[in-house]
């Protein structure tokens, strides 16, 4: 079994922002096992003071060029996601996840398919025809969730100061739910840290 240690390597106290004293910005850099920036990881911050999520929409994951676009889509709980097929071939999108099981039997460009994600969690997506196709719908209950960019960086604004939990999700993390978590204490002036994933 793998042991994952989530370690805080540095903490930089940012300069006081001219914002309201109870809302701060959290900047996090995520690095993989190899020490390199890890893009495409979902970072969420859970805090008791977080407001409820709101569904705005529309949310969509296209099937284009025999791939899911985007690869990872973060949606609030209760969101309905469309799976438009932009390829000439047909796709059979499914998920066996506990969060949301669905099975969109073969459909083409002319067919519109939507799925309601009513529970938080990760929903791996696959295409029964094309094994290489892989995608994720990240259903979150907190508004503070973002995807790391190419530099493995994520910046989340409006996070209330105080204690909370940072969770990093990425398929490569070999832990239950592919998630690593770490409690944090967000200062009013903001919070910045770097997470390095360790085996």
């Amino acid at each position: 079994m793998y042991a994952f240690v989530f370690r805080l390597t540095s903490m930089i106290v940012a300069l006081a922002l001219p914002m309201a004293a109870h809302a701060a910005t959290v900047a996090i850099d995520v690095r993989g096992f190899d020490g390199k920036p890890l893009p495409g990881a979902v970072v969420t911050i859970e805090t008791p003071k977080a407001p409820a999520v709101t569904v705005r929409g529309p949310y969509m994951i296209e099937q284009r060029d025999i791939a899911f676009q985007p690869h990872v889509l973060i949606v609030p709980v209760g969101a309905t996601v469309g799976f438009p097929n932009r390829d000439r071939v047909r796709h059979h999108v499914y998920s066996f996840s506990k969060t949301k099981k669905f099975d969109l039997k073969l459909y083409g460009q002319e067919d519109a398919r939507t799925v309601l994600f009513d529970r938080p969690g990760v929903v791996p997506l696959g295409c029964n025809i094309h094994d290489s196709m892989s995608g994720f719908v990240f259903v979150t209950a907190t508004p503070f969730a973002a995807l790391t960019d190419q530099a493995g960086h994520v910046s989340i604004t409006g996070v209330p100061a105080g204690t909370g939990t940072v969770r990093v999700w990425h398929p490569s993390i070999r832990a239950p739910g592919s998630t690593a978590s770490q409690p944090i204490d967000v200062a009013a002036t903001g919070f910045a840290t770097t997470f390095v994933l360790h085996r």
Partner: protein
Amino acid sequence: MSLRWPRFRHLRTKLSVLYASLFAVTLVLLAVVAQVMIWTHARDSVRQELVTSGSVYDRLWSLRSQSLIASADLLSRDFGFRAAVASGDRPTIASALANISNRAEVTAAFVVDQDGQVTGPSGALAATVARFPFAVPGGRRDAVVVVAGQVYRLIMSPVMAPMQVGWVVFAVRLDSMEMQGLERLSAIPLIATIMRSDGAGRWHAADRSVGSNAAVDDLVEASRSSRTLATLNLSTGRAFAIAKPLAGLTNRPQAAILIRYPLNAALTPYLPLQAGIALAGLAGLILVVLGSRRLAMGIAGPIAALDAAARALEEGSRAHIVVKGRDEISRLAASFDRMSAGILERENRITHLAFHDVLTGLPNRTFFRQSLDQAILQVRRAGGGIAVLCLDLDRFKGVNDTLGHPVGDALLKAIGTMLSEVAPDGLVSRLGGDEYAVILSGQFDADRPRVLAQSILDMMRQPVVADGHHIATAVSIGIAIGPVDGEDADELLKNADLALYLAKEDGRGVFRFFEPALDAAARWRRQVELDLREAIQAGQFVLNYQPVFDLKADRIGGFEALVRWHHPERGIVPPAEFIPIAEDTGLIIAIGEWVMQEACRQAMHWPEHIRVAVNVSPLQFRNSGLQAIILQALAHSGLAPDRLEIEITESVFLDGEGPVIALLHTLRAMGIRVALDDFGTGYSSLSYLRSFPFDKIKIDRSFITSIATDPSAAAIVRAIVDLAAALDMETTAEGVEDTGQLDLLRGEGCGNIQGYLFSRPVESGRIAGLLENRISRAA
């Protein structure tokens, strides 16, 4: 250590064995080389085949892996199955696994989820399967493990949904069946065996078909780095083998496949070749044995023949030997043949000489004896009769003396030829000198011996022509008839000799048959001979003396010494009985010596005018010691030589005149007187009187006895006396018995008389009285 070449009795065996051995050695070497080459070739080709087979096995192994992986993948990608795994629907998973187990022919199928939970058949295997996906190094999808003594091949396939949610794991038991499947796919008859490690470096066959073997252990260990070929000594026989270690959960293999190729199977294709070499070798050996035997016979045959011929020659016979060809051996054989012929011819000649008389060519005495022995045996076996005729020429010595030896030899030869002609049915032999013998044997007429003897005598009546001389001769023949006259050759021959003796006694020129009386006489002679020898030793002889009266001086002029034998049992033995025997046996010489000594000794007691006369026999004359004996007698006694008178008969001249006359002259020169005894009888030849001047002639008594009644006797006496007077010799008349004779003799002018008229021989003791009496009577 030296190798000793066995000793052979025959050259041909030696050659055969030598050639055959050399060829056999060559064959064995060839066979060994061939065997080594076959083995090397077999090994190389098997190595090649095994290496190829190893690659094929690798290929088969991976094909099987791919096939299993494909089956696992098929399952793991099945949408429904993935749905079941993703949703943790265990009953569905288990049924799907059972289904695929049957379909893909795997021993057991499992699903292992990301947390290591196993779904599938429970048991010891499940625990290993649970570790399998997490334990194998990255990239590998298969492994071979040993669980509870069983070897399993594990294959895994990830289950993606689409993220990986677990693995499908297939377990295939590697058993004999599995291996046989592999074996069937191979082009050559290989045996594949699954080996498992005991963890300590030792390897065991899962099915126990291969025992624990260090060579196997080494082979497997070596095969981990590179393909290695080994030769194993297994209980089932030698085998070439390679091993294929099978990767386990870790890199250290727990199992391996041992692929072997039994040497017997590898060498099987060469069996015809080996059999061919063996058969060809055997056939070659037989041919060489036959051929070398034939060659050896060619070489050794003539040598063996030579050997046999040499042996035969050694044993006295001769084997004619012919060796064809023009080589050394045939030349040797030819030389040997000539040589053996020469040897045999010379031997025959020698044998002939040994058994034949050179002069006449007749069988000799030895041959005669052997023939007689054989004839006697033959008669004993087959019956019939046997007769031996002994012949002796009468007076042959005279022929030699008068005509010479060449003529004598010619005569002997002529007589031999004549005898052979007259007795074609008998075996004529020359026994020596003038003696011949004829053997008649087998079936012959009872009268035949007599007829033959008579015809021989008749033949001899004509003078025989020898060397140009006509010689009148005669033979005496003695005949003995077997087996009446003798059981064996000695007796027959002795009796024939006795008969011959009788014939000679009876006047020669006659034949006599043996009679038993002859044998008695012969025995008597032998007894007398024995007694005579004793008599000489014991002094049984005495001398009597008969006076010789000198008519002119009218007194006794001398005494003739006469020997008498007082035999202790028979009394006085007359001289006529023993003197001839003493003459024949040579005893006369010893007796004569004693007489000479005794007479001289006695005479010394007599008056000086009285002489003593001693008879000397021809045998004494032939003996060279006579002169010495006389001198010794005179010296011992001291008697004057002129008082000794020796009396000889004409027979002393029969053996040749010259030496006798020389001796007589010597004696005369010493002063000894010599008288010629018994004159007028026998061969009386006047030539003797010319050759030696005798002192006295003694006229034989036969003339004296009839002198008074027969005028011719008186005339002869007168002539002798006149002749003696003319030659200046004295005369003595012997056997004068009455005065009439005395008066006539006195009238004729005879000088001396001797006889009973005057006195018988007297003993020495009476001589003195006799002298006195005569003197007084004369006075």
